[in-house]
């Protein structure tokens, strides 16, 4: 039942970054957004590996922008979350909320 799949931790984080960035989401901005919000160093390879997996599942779509000189004439690959991806995020968020309901995790953390 692939449509009932829950997202992996990093898949979830990447999809949330795409939703935050909207039409500005490409490798650099996604990587920086995740680093900024999770405070952990992320490689561009990890981001692309996850985005490829999400694209195979139909959770994201990508398109190439125009080549720019500051990128050595290389184009940006922009990503966008599909409705199926949004549904997967909601499903995972809901599962996490249900699992954490009644737990005071942040306060009990040392």
């Amino acid at each position, binding site marked *: 039942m692939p449509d009932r799949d829950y997202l992996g931790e990093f898949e979830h984080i990447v999809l949330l970054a795409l939703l935050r960035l909207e039409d500005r989401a*490409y*490798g*650099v901005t996604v*990587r*920086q957004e995740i680093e900024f919000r999770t405070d952990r*160093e992320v*490689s*561009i*390879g*990890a981001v*692309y*590996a996850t985005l*490829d*997996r999400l694209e*195979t599942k139909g959770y994201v779509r990508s398109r*190439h922008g125009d*080549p*720019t*000189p*500051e*990128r*050595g*004439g*290389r*184009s*940006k*690959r922009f990503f966008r979350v599909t409705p199926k991806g949004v549904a997967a995020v909601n499903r995972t968020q809901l599962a996490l909320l249900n699992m954490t309901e009644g737990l005071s995790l942040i306060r009990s953390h040392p």
Partner: protein
Amino acid sequence: MMVRSLADEPPRAATWLVSLFTLAQETESILGDLLEEYSSLASREGTAFARRWYWRQTLKTIVHLIPTAFTVAPWSTAAGLAVGFTATKPLVRLPGRIILAVLERYQVYEHHFATYVFFASTGIDLGILISFLCVGCIVAWIAKGTEMAATIVLSMVQVAMALVAVVYLLGKSGGLHFWMLSWSLADALAIVIGGAIVRLSRFNTTRVPALRSD
């Protein structure tokens, strides 16, 4: 007018490694992303910091992207591996047969003994090495876009089989067979080099010429 000096460029070896190991369809995007961040870091934190960051990103990126080949292009990667695995045995036997047939045909043993010894030992070993290089090329040719992942996996299988054989021989005869292991490592390396040759030739023919920044 913006002129890029050599210090502004990211490490070439790292860029070469990224272009070798990333999936063909995303090499340009990843290299562009890395260059964009490198330039920004170099102007903010200095070139040395940016170069260290670039190398760190390169190594982590390679580690992450090799397994991706099996999810992005599972069929061509698996087909490349299967053909490579089946073709290895008949292909590596060929050089020995050919060299020995030629030596016998021209009666080298009788007339040039030193030449005979060289070709019957080192010549055959080199021939086998070239055969493994060809196997790497064949695997990479089939596994289009995931050349390096396919050849690395096949070379790891070869090394694993050699290790099993060494352990088996160690238990049977008690002697160490490091020579066998060293040749197997060289054969495995030849497979990966074959993959790299095909990958780079494809990359050079399909890449879009970079826009000048000046």
